[in-house]
């Protein structure tokens, strides 16, 4: 097939996909074509959209590709569709941020940082499928270990966990004793009895520098 045709095929695949389409799926469908080739066509496609200033563009999100409208047209879309604005409370956002950066993380660690009970908030985030249970930590009480979900990446438009904005450094105070500040960091992963079908965790990348 010619490039132009292949590009159109890929475009059609993404068009009919409900969730971000993984490049492996595209490759499965296309057969012969190499990943590198597909990536090139995908970036070609995106350039096409950008050049012709369409209302939507091709976005890499949650480890896949998806068509999304451009932010500047949000107000028009909200007129068309009944507005259902993001309803995450401040506690929910804070908790979500802690889970995102500290995962794998148990409830006690989240509560240590926020200084308040987080059980209800964690449950809400679970129900909204923004976080998920990764397994249980192998310490007394076998607390649940939380991490973020694919929906989290989709909602915040993140390609993967490593594209989270970098945490601001703790300034001053000199380097605080790591064990006092982050009593759980680094031991989490080993202690987890991993739940089945877990994706590899990108926690190394997330640790505060």
């Amino acid at each position, binding site marked *: 097939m010619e490039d132009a045709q292949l590009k159109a095929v890929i475009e059609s695949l993404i*068009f009919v996909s*409900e969730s971000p389409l993984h490049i492996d799926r595209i490759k499965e469908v296309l057969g012969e074509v190499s990943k590198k080739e597909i990536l090139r066509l995908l970036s070609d496609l995106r350039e096409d959209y950008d050049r012709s200033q369409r209302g939507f563009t091709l*976005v890499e999100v949650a480890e896949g590709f*998806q*068509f*999304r*409208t*451009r*932010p500047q047209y*949000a107000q028009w*879309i909200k007129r068309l*569709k*009944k507005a*259902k*604005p*993001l*309803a995450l409370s*401040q*506690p929910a*956002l*804070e908790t*979500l*941020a*802690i889970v*995102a*950066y500290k995962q794998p993380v148990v*409830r006690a660690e989240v509560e*240590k*940082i*926020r*200084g*308040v*009970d987080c*059980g*209800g908030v964690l*449950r*809400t985030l*679970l*129900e*909204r*499928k923004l976080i998920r*249970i990764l397994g249980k930590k192998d310490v007394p009480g*076998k*607390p*649940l270990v939380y991490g973020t979900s694919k929906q989290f990446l*989709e*909602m*915040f*438009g*993140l390609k993967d966990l490593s594209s989270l*904005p970098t*945490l*601001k450094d*703790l*300034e*001053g*105070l000199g380097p*605080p004793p790591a064990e*006092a*500040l982050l009593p759980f960091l680094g031991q989490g992963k080993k202690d987890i009895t991993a739940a089945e079908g877990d994706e590899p965790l990108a926690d190394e990348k997330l640790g505060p520098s």
Partner: protein
Amino acid sequence: MESTPFPNKEGQGEFSGDIKSDQPESPLNVKLEVFEGPLDLLLHLIKKNEIDIYDIPIAVITQQYLEYLEMMKSLNLDIAGEFLLIAATLLHIKSKMLLPPAEEEQVEERREEMEEDPRAELVRRLLEYQRFKEAALDLTQGSLLDRDVFTRSFLEGKLLEGGEEALIGEATLFGLLEALKKVLQGVPPGEFQEVSLDQLNIKEKIHQIMDRLWERESLTFTELFTAATARREIILTFLALLELLRLRLIKIYQSEAFGTIRIFSPIEREEGRKRMAERIL
């Protein structure tokens, strides 16, 4: 702000800034700034007093903090235990800092514990918390799905086409009970559950469900439960659904016997809030 080891009474006036009163004549009509927790309150006090976080005048801050708790008490607000815990920590730090410098002989033994500023641990916690507060803010700055950017919506299409999920009518009580049974059977009986102290009540659950409905327009029955939902909470959720049905705040449809159960709210958020305030207390 100078650091004084003794609480000064003048500091009490400070709180007028935190009280937003629409009608000054009516002392009952006060709104407190809502804080997410004790650390949030401390950060607020530090910012308000333009204090260097690395050199907190502990006496001043402790006093203001306690005044704030006092005010919460006088407004009949529940003061969560966490607020008291930090209050105790503040008082502990304050007392440590008031201790006279150790005598020569004792210096050797005490050096270890004297080396660190008693405030250091608290400052670290504050900084750590602030860091994630900012991270939370950063998260909302990007292009958020369904706020700034949108994808094609597949649910609507399905409902309109009346494909697999044709909604033929309102669900019957038996349909609901059947679905409940299925969910309950999914809870592994011998599984250890995380014991949590917070008691969720029906009222909270009702609000949770409605908030999600208004955000999404519709929910399926199974979406209300996650793998981690405890038996007690499943029942609670179910009771909340029945109550909402009774109040006509939701409508529940089922496609066919044992088919997907979908929950809608026929009422807009504003109207619903009003009705909930009237009928659920």
